[in-house]
């Protein structure tokens, strides 16, 4: 890997013609070889940011450099340095996996010998050798995503953009993709910019996480740093009799300050950490309050999101989801 530049952005803004301020002043710095998780709900501005960084959408304001090149004035150099698997697995259902690779390698100007060798390598790596001559319409979601990844890697890019690569995949396919992304960063030094709405994905994969909401980065750091900002664990109690929710809240208030919980329960962030749990159980028992459900939560990235935005990440994406292709179509129709 000769290119040791990552991704930098300053004050990146994107306003659509008839739409919202989708990205509203983002500053980013992703180091070479780092896996950066861009976490946020649907409509937060993740995909729009990616479209700008991969040169498919010009920023309204601000600037960005990818692999050392300016995304506005040095687009061809940026594209030569990056691979991208955008939000939809943009594949032709009528072509086979091998035909997709032939098309992609030809577009990158590879010789016939290199095309064949590289296609074989990538099919092997993503476990699609046996299915290479089947039409893509017969592939599962996981197989499509793996082919998508292989296509993004044909020209050995130094930076890889993955826009929600595991959305809709079963857990096995998701784990397989995570393993390949980790391997790319660890063994080949590829810088990975990964958008996701899955907390566990950002937690498991990313060296650093940027949390985006309404077009702005609301928190950034390693998963451990971010969770440490929230600090203490929470405990949630759901009373057997929902009428006793207020009484449960009063008991829990002795141990910490209230925080968000499911509608039928109450929750507090514990003042003294996990050590309070036994005391809470004793207090509930002493007050003769029957409990249907009691759970201790360690701080998660969802707690970070909640602390920074006042909303839970789960279900926060109530805006209509706009796919990257749809965003471009809207902008260029």
């Amino acid at each position, binding site marked *: 890997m000769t290119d040791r530049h990552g991704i930098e952005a300053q004050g990146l803004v994107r306003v659509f013609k008839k739409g919202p301020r989708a990205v509203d002043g983002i500053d980013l710095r992703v180091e070479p070889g780092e896996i950066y998780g861009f976490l946020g709900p649907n409509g937060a501005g993740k995909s729009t940011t990616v479209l700008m960084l*991969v040169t*498919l959408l010009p920023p309204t304001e601000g600037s960005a450099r990818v692999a050392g090149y300016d995304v506005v*004035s040095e687009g061809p150099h940026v594209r030569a340095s990056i691979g991208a698997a955008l939000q939809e697995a*943009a*594949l032709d259902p009528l072509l086979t996996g091998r035909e997709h690779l*032939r098309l992609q390698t030809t577009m990158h100007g590879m010789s016939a010998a290199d095309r064949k060798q590289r296609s074989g390598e990538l099919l092997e790596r993503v476990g699609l050798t046996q299915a290479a001559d089947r039409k893509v319409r017969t592939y599962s979601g996981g197989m499509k995503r793996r082919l998508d990844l292989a296509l993004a890697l044909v020209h050995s890019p130094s930076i890889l953009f993955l826009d929600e690569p595991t959305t809709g995949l079963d857990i096995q396919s998701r784990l397989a993709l995570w393993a390949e992304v980790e391997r790319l960063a660890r063994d080949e030094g590829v810088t990975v910019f990964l958008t996701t709405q899955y907390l566990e994905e950002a937690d498991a994969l990313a060296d650093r996480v940027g949390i985006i909401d309404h077009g702005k980065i609301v928190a950034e750091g390693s998963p451990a740093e971010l969770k440490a900002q929230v600090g203490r664990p929470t405990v949630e109690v759901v009373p057997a009799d929902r009428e006793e929710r207020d009484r449960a809240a009063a008991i829990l208030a002795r141990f910490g300050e209230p925080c968000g919980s499911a509608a039928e329960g109450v929750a507090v962030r514990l003042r003294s950490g996990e050590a309070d749990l036994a005391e809470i159980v004793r207090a509930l028992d002493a007050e003769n309050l029957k409990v249907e459900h009691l759970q201790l939560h360690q701080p998660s990235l969802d707690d970070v999101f909640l602390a920074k935005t006042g909303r839970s990440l789960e279900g926060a994406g109530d805006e209509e989801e706009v796919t990257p*292709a749809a965003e471009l179509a809207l902008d260029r129709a």
Partner: protein
Amino acid sequence: MSNVFAGQVLTLAQRSVVRTVRQPANIVFPLVFPLLLLAVNAGGLDAATRLPGFPTNSFVAFALAIPFIQGALFATMNAGTDLARDIQTGFLNRLALTPMRGIALLTGQLGGIVAMGVIQSLVYLGVGLAVGVRLESGPAGALVLIVLAVLISIGFGALGAFAALRTGSGEAVQSLFPVFFVFLFLSSMAMPRNLIEIDWFRAVATANPVSYLIEAIRSLIIVGWDEEALALGFGFAFAITVVAVALASMALRTRLARS
């Protein structure tokens, strides 16, 4: 043309053909529907050949020009719809992220249309000859006919590509089909212009470029070498192609507005 560019064009043209071949409806309708319509017209309108001044005594020979235009329309719609689907699914974004030149995409797409145009022309011509139509311009005329039919397909194909690139919508492309068909029906498709008795219809058919495309193909079948008809036919086909390719190129530039 560099090797890389040629490889890109060839691969994209191959994809266009492969995609068409793997959607049987995209082959069957452009081949079968025009021939069915030819059979119906030839059976029902044969009496028209007895009109004084009708240029031939075989209505099949007279009407054989129509499938070439109808086939081009079908191929155009199918190719345009496929391109719109590429936009909607994000496949075009994938291509835009490669060093592919925009003109390679358009040329490749039109290359696929050329291949389909040649196949369709050979089938229509073969069926015509099989049912007894005599090609008055001979074997050289068959070659010219195929070249003209392919040029018409490229022109219409570029219009379909323009609609796809401008709107990004397969539905919008398909909505052009009835518009094109109106042009076809308001032409000299079913009757020579000098025998059309309704004044407004004759005026519209005379102003309609599709009349001259049909008359050029028809002249090769039933007349031989009619220089005026061929000049007008090739002239209009060329003009439509130039304008449509220019429009499609501009729309592609907007659609592929990568920095």
